[in-house]
């Protein structure tokens, strides 16, 4: 199929960006979206133009590296997948596709479609861990029984890949879904309970300091999350935060 692409180009963080139009032809419906981008980039290199910078790596939907706002939606029109799992069969011959980077104050553009997501790193560093030494001299793993129910809920929260689609889809650029997933994962486990209050206080404080907006219960984050992270986590984080504050 033949497509018209309108892609955000921005040379560097300080430069002004703009939408640039490109045409691609003979795109197979079996290609992934990123393979279509590869084809475009190959053609740009052939013309001695600078290829479009975009983040990607594992191309299996797990590393959380790929981003791309496609036709106004993070990771494109399909539900429950990352951009690397989006296939061209989702589009029709002759379509015009708009491709932009994540848009949020806390995610500044580095180049073209690549943004800086280090704000997520700093939130994690503010307490997204259990303070256990890596000595290996801990108690036997089965000495900490965990109900299957809680282990599963914790796993569901831990499935977050930190891609930032929640922030990009939110009208307030809120990072609540991401932060709440981390808070929930540990809050649901006995190992994580010990420092739960400090953790939620510190992570929320860092989240605010990074310039992310607040949650107004719109739910767009849950809809766009490639891993189906549930809004329940936000509710759990709010409870944890309230408990920690009184």
């Amino acid at each position, binding site marked *: 199929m033949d497509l018209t692409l309108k892609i955000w180009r921005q040379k560097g963080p300080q430069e002004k960006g703009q939408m640039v139009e490109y045409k691609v032809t003979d795109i*197979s419906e*079996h*290609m*992934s979206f990123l*393979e279509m981008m*590869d084809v475009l980039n*190959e053609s740009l*290199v*052939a013309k001695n*133009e*600078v*290829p479009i*910078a975009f983040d990607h*790596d*594992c*191309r*299996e939907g*797990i*590393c*959380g*590296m790929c981003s791309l706002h496609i036709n106004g939606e993070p990771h494109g029109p399909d539900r*429950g*997948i990352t951009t690397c*799992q989006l*296939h061209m*069969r989702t589009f029709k011959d002759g379509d015009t596709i708009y491709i932009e980077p994540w848009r949020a104050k806390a995610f500044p553009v*580095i*180049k073209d479609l*690549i943004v800086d*997501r*280090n704000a997520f*790193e700093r939130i994690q*560093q503010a*307490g*997204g*861990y*259990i*303070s*256990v030494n*890596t*000595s*290996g001299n801990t108690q036997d*793993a*089965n000495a*900490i*029984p*965990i*109900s*299957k129910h809680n*282990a*599963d809920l*914790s*796993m569901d929260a831990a*499935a977050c*890949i930190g891609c930032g689609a929640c922030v990009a889809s939110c009208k307030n650029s809120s990072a609540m879904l991401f932060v709440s997933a981390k808070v929930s*994962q*540990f809050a649901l*486990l006995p*190992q*994580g309970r010990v420092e739960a209050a400090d953790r939620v206080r510190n992570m929320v404080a860092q989240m605010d300091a990074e310039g992310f907006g607040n949650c107004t219960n719109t739910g767009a984050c849950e809809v766009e999350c490639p891993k189906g992270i549930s809004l329940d986590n936000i509710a759990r984080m709010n409870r944890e935060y309230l408990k920690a504050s009184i």
Partner: protein
Amino acid sequence: MTTLNSRVPEGPIKDKWTTYKENIDLVNPANKRNIDIIVVGTGLAGGSAAASLAELGYNVKAFAYQDSPRRAHSIAAQGGINAAKNYQNDGDSNYRLFYDTVKGGDYRSREANVYRLAEVSGAIIDQCVAQGVPFARDYGGLLDNRSFGGVLVSRTFYAKGQTGQQLLLGCYSAMNRQIARGKIEMFNRHEMLDVVKIDGKARGIIARNLITGELERHSAHAVVIATGGYGNVYFLSTNAMGSNATAAWKVHKKGAFFANPCMTQIHPTCIPRSGDYQSKLTLMSESLRNDGRIWVPAKIEDAKAIQQGKLKPTEIAEEDRDYYLERRYPAYGNLVPRDVASRAAKERCDAGYGVNATGEAVYLDFASAIHRYGSEQAKIHGISNPSKEKITELGEAVIEEKYGNLFQMYEKIVDDNPYKTPMMIYPATHYTMGGVWVDYNLMTTVDGLYCIGEANFSDHGANRLGASALMQGLADGYFVLPYTIGAYLSKDIRTGKIPTDTKEFDEAEKQAQERLEFFINNKGTHSVDYYHKKLGLVMWNKVGMARNEKNLKEAIKEIQEIREDFWKNVKVPGELNEMNVELEKAGRVADFLELGELFAKDALERNESCGGHFREEYVTEDGEALRDDENYAYVAAWEYTGKPSEAILHKEQLEFKDIELKTRSYK
């Protein structure tokens, strides 16, 4: 000239590690504060090492080409991590894990390293649980296990189909704790371009800031390479797109021997390739073989009809199916090791029984597992005389619980529902058992230069068993390196800060700079990917799942030609001092073009078939790999002398004192 000394401690294998730990020199906590360590790569091995070394008190500088350690390719490991806990009481022990690993590796790994790996495996699980890794649990709240290829016990711990992700997030959180304390200085979006040696010791690196393009000098008392494998030498592989061999290859060029490069694993359960534009291959966890049965049509006319799209797999009667693994290997069946399963699939497809348009796929079928689980669930829920539909529904729910994310991934890529029709799978390049040669201390042939995880060679021999990569990465990082590096650094407590304004740093930075400038200024005709794909094709066709002398000789020549053309005609648009993805790729492909040749040379040198290295000239009568222990029970460690073709072969003779060298049989 550098010589090989494995430094394996004396004494019985069961006591080696304990005795070693009790007798090495230690660094006192006050002195650790004055010692810097560089860790390059922050996947499971590098991340766990960085966290543990920082916690011990060393100053750690960690480098990742990604924007976060959480994105390292360890995250994509699906199935699980092995540990000899014997929670299932099915007869597991350290010895049995050791035995399975040595046998699974076709007797080409170092006994002492593997025993140590088995010995610390239990502590890894304890550590990860303490960190909050949400492993699968049974209803009583205890840890659940499953089994993997090449093994007769259930020793694999897992977190749904996302075990690698969860283990990586565990060590990443341990890193975050140390970053917050200021003990790890994290350099995201940085790539190591060279190692700096001073007086024969590794004392620092040259790194490129991938955002600004600036070259940076970083010094330390020791350097740890933890940058994973080199499977992307094939272009198409299950590795992440950015996974590269640059750090490992650069240290090789600075004196670290490179061992067994030809021992590369082809993983049996990947989604088959579909077109020329394809950028990578996707792996389906080996754990699927616990419940999936592998087959192809028994009749060639059925296979042809399927290839032409005239017949569906569900239309082929049970008696017309060839469950070839169960037929050939009754004891292990679908759970034979990866090399055996991969070759068996290739054999059937080469014989014309493949099941997709290209004839390069076999079925992985869950129908009988769905029926079995469904019937069991019906009993559990007290449903008498359940309908076929009800059984299927209940069975599919169990399969979804176990493998849901894998099935979803398959459906997204292939556009086909694997609950209803069997998956199609085919082998693909996955893990590299070869890597930088290290001694028992995990130190390379360069003093103070360490190499851990997939980037080194020591633990998996000629074939890695499933769920062992995560185990080795974390064992090296959490529990082995923190001891062994201390013994080395105890001699460095008076050295003081290593300056970066020396001639060695000048020289290394100058070389890196010149190479980058060459690419930008070359203004050639072909893209970097053009060369990478060409190399990959030669590697797959002639240095792939099966190799022979003629093809290997041709491959070496062809790789040399591609490399020559690359240095003349490669084109890299963009500028030096900016984010330039093409420039990054150019450096990496330049390294693959050298490594690929050494790879083929190594395969040519080894006149035997073992594990993931299969030479067509050396097979038994029934088509199995024919090992030659008399002549090839050694590690091939290559010394760089200027060109891959002139690399010098050093041999580390492997000793098997605790395990008898036997023909590997899974029948």
